[in-house]
């Protein structure tokens, strides 16, 4: 930190909109605005200082699609040439039929419900999105498509980065400890699947804990401890 550049907050301190973060030659990062030399927070979150860039890690907020994001959505309507998908964003997403089937299977276009019906859950990727047009999805890639088993749980999209952790540390720990398959949609919907319902339950409990306690440090250790305790308790007192 350079002298004479007052910093108003500490790292990981909870800030609210309009709170003065710093005054001086700092750069304004995510969720902040700069007025002159003063940097203010624009959302409720945790202050984050990296070098001379000040940002706020938001603790609440909606999902805004970005190209390349993997999301979990629900089919809400079927049109002539595709599906409308609810991805928990302020914009309705479209999944065109051409992004769901091979061109060779053209005849399937006759009846789209045979591929996906209203109410089906899908893992999809955002193919295109900008502020002027609604998001376009695809299920053509590896690992995408209709969800056939498991549980989908919902958390705040703002907490998704915390669920993944630094370089995926949190999510890989959950997978390792519970033995579940976990697929994270950037829109805050998470698919948990395992052959053992109890293990699914443990993973879901861990995910909810992260949603609730995302702003408190030492989360990975606490979650690991919780998972181990739950699994141990179950083995001591089997139902």
């Amino acid at each position, binding site marked *: 930190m350079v002298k004479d550049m007052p910093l108003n907050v500490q790292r990981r301190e909870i800030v609210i909109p309009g709170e003065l973060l710093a005054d001086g030659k700092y750069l304004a990062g995510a*969720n902040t605005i700069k007025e002159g030399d003063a940097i203010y927070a624009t959302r409720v979150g945790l202050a984050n200082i990296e070098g001379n860039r000040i940002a706020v890690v938001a603790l*609440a*907020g909606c999902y805004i699609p970005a190209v390349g994001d993997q999301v979990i959505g629900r089919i809400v309507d079927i049109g002539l040439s595709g599906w409308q998908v609810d991805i928990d964003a302020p914009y309705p997403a479209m999944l065109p039929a051409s992004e769901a089937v091979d061109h060779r299977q053209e005849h399937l276009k006759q009846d789209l419900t045979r591929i996906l019906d209203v109410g089906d859950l899908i893992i999809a990727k955002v193919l295109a999105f900008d502020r002027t047009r609604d998001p376009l999805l695809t299920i053509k890639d590896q690992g995408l498509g209709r969800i056939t088993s498991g549980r989908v749980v919902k958390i705040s999209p703002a907490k998704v980065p915390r669920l993944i952790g630094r370089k995926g540390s949190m999510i890989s720990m959950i997978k390792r400890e519970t033995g579940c398959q976990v697929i994270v949609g950037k829109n805050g919907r998470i698919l948990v699947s395992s052959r053992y319902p109890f293990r699914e339950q443990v993973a879901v409990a861990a995910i909810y804990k992260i949603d609730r306690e995302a702003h408190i440090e030492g989360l990975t250790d606490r979650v690991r401890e919780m998972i181990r305790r739950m699994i141990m308790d179950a083995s001591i007192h089997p139902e």
Partner: protein
Amino acid sequence: MPRSIQNKSDRLIGKDGIRVDGRRLDELRPIKMEVGILDKADGSAYIEQGKNKIMVAVFGPREAHPKHVALTDRAVLRCRYHMAPFSTEERRSPAPSRRDMELSKVIREALEPAVISQLYPRTTIDVFAEILQSDGGTRCASITAASLALADAGIPMRDMVAACAVGKVDGEIVLDPCDIEDKNGEADLPVAIMPNLGMITLLQMDGKLSKEEFERGLNMAIKACVEIHGRQREALKNKYLEIERSMEEYGGEEQ
């Protein structure tokens, strides 16, 4: 001790400068704020200011319905101020009145400068303020609570908005008038500000104030808004700190 007034000739301010509800001239009513109380809303807040009880829910940014209200370059902010039928002494018709419509507009315009709506084009942000019990100064309390609910919903804002009114009663400038003072007073001056940016987003006046009284009243209101803003900050941070506290308690029990 609160004193009730028997008839109109009763003065609302005693010789000792104490008001009908026992406050000093520049004293706010007791305020209680809470954030994140509704599960179904994206953001919510509850405020008690004296006998006022107001609940605010925020939804959005979400898809605009009907579609033609959407704007291509920013989000539309929509507000609904509504008094519950049981919020006043005599039953109030639940249908939106002329006054409700006006206050909805006033509240929207007080919040609009704070919300960074350009980030979410073609969407709407809906604010619902429900007055459960009213005792004067509900528009200001609604603005204070609405700004809390917006922040709770994670909607980007330049600053919080805090509001407070000043009135003229028995020839004296008083802070945060209650219903009796409001109805029998000579003037009413609601003010909303963005405290960190030092900007006024709402300034209304009815009745008559001299230039000197207006200036004194405005300064009084701004000072009160800054105090209210402090309470807002506390309430917002409390939501997250409470989780931490409850966690420590739980952890302590286990050991």
